[in-house]
């Protein structure tokens, strides 16, 4: 039986950042994450969506950002997609300076797995996965 999922589509406007975070937090709240882990998910999600809006679409509200949430193996998979300009190595460096280059750092620190697929002119897809730490500890205990 497929796990729970939710999909959001919204315009490339930063006014939708709060919406994305609330949706992600609510979805995560149905799983076994602690409040701290949910806050980490909100930051990672906010960074990924900000990247899509600011760098993918240069804050063009005609752009569409898609966010998918999936329950997977009692954890949460998040996919953030845009069809914007994609990551160009040169531009990535300039944009990192504005936000201190921390966006991706936060995503990688707060999520257990991160996959980024980006091609100039074709857009960017960030896939992130996090599993409640409590379940990892239980699994480790079972293996002993």
């Amino acid at each position: 039986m497929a796990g729970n999922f939710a999909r959001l589509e919204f315009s490339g406007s930063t006014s939708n950042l709060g919406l994305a975070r609330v949706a992600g937090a609510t979805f995560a709240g149905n799983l076994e994450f602690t409040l701290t882990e949910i806050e980490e998910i909100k930051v990672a999600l906010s960074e990924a969506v900000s990247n899509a809006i600011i760098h993918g679409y240069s804050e063009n509200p005609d752009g569409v950002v898609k966010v998918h949430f999936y329950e997977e193996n009692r954890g949460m998979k998040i996919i953030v997609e845009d069809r914007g300009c994609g990551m160009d190595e040169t531009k990535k460096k300039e944009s990192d300076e504005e936000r201190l280059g921390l966006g991706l750092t936060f995503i990688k620190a707060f999520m257990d797995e991160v996959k980024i697929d980006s091609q100039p002119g074709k857009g960017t897809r960030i896939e992130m996965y996090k599993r409640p730490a409590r379940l990892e500890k239980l699994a480790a205990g079972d293996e002993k």
Partner: protein
Amino acid sequence: MILKEEVIGRSTIMLHITGDLDAHTADEFRQSLATVLERDIRKKNLILDMKNVNFIDSSGLGVILGRYRAIQMRRGKIIITSPQPHVKKILEFSGITRVVPVVSDKESARDLLEQKGVE
């Protein structure tokens, strides 16, 4: 995002911030800090009260650090007070606390400024 100003002593402005500090509010936050600092060049210290900040990410951090140099050139200090635990965690993780101290309240911020001899 809502900002409320409080003047403290001769050289310090305290900003009480309510809301989220993200890419959506970054421009407004940046402009507000610039306005506050440009209005009076004698005000060289900035205390940011984050008690009512519910969320911060790299966009919000970038705005704070963006003012750091301007404050430094006035030989002043930026101090953050009362962040909620999850906000404090982001501040610490980012490393911004190495240059922007985080204290528990306004009195602690004032004590720190006096110790530094900048109040």
